[in-house]
């Protein structure tokens, strides 16, 4: 199978269409299972009571906000170096979903911070760098939307996405590097997890559900972008004649 041929938007378009339900249905089913375990199986937290149940969307959303940004920067970099149109479109297809998850991470964080810290918001390293991530997404979307020439918009946006990616490790390590109100990682690759098994399970299932959601939604948006660009090209051709 020649994978390279899928780098052409026209050939990837039908494949993306076939993949949408492959990810959309698991997203829905896993979200139901994850929420069921999160609310009906996982025990009440000894120190935080029921308020900790925000974790089942807060942590997966925060992870997605960073993963999607890195994916966006990856496609942007690939677009700039290989000059593949599809890569730029992938980057653009990811941005709104990444921004949405960043907003969710911030919002649920505020609603968790209020009962546990006594405040909706503090200007500490973790929260501030996550807010900057939201501005980076919004900046990327505004920039690409503001430039009429698609090629220029793609390149300018890609540059912003790549430069902004420095913020992602800052978010991730902020709880280690600075004194912050935000707690350290509950799940770490080196030390394992400090959570009860059912709590962790619900959180991981929700993470997979959010992944699947993000992929399904991005593919639908990618298909829209492919067709919008074809329409724009056709319109430009007609205008020339």
């Amino acid at each position: 199978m020649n994978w390279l041929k899928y780098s052409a938007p026209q050939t990837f378009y039908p494949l993306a269409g076939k993949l949408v339900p492959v990810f959309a249905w698991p997203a829905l089913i896993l979200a139901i299972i994850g929420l069921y375990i999160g609310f009906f199986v996982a025990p009440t937290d000894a120190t935080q009571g029921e308020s900790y149940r925000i974790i089942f969307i807060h942590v997966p959303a925060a992870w997605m906000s960073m993963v999607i940004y890195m994916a966006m920067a990856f496609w942007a970099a690939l677009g700039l170096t290989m000059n593949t149109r599809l890569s730029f479109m992938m980057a653009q297809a990811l941005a709104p979903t990444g921004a949405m998850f960043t907003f969710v991470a911030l919002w649920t964080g505020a609603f968790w911070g209020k009962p546990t810290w006594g405040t909706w918001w503090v200007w500490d390293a973790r929260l501030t760098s996550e807010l900057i991530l939201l501005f980076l997404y919004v900046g990327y979307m505004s920039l690409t939307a503001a430039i009429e020439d698609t090629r220029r918009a793609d390149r300018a946006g890609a540059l912003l996405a790549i430069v902004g990616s420095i913020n992602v490790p800052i978010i991730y390590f902020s709880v280690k590097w600075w004194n912050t109100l935000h707690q350290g990682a509950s799940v770490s690759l080196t030390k394992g997890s400090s959570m009860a098994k059912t709590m962790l399970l619900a959180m991981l299932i929700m993470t997979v559900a959010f992944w699947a959601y993000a992929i399904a939604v991005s593919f639908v948006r990618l298909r829209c972008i492919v067709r919008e660009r074809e329409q724009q090209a056709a319109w430009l051709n007609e205008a020339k004649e």
Partner: protein
Amino acid sequence: MDWGQFFEMGGYGLYVWGSYIVTAVVMIGELLLLRNRKRTVERKDGQSSNMSS
């Protein structure tokens, strides 16, 4: 099970449901916006040349 107690969330109802409801709203909102975008693209394609599948 007692649903009243469930929605109370041990006194944290506002925070827990305030998180979950807003998350559901923005996710469904994204899906609706995307559906609109898809429909607009399809309508424009219907007016001019067509692209298969």
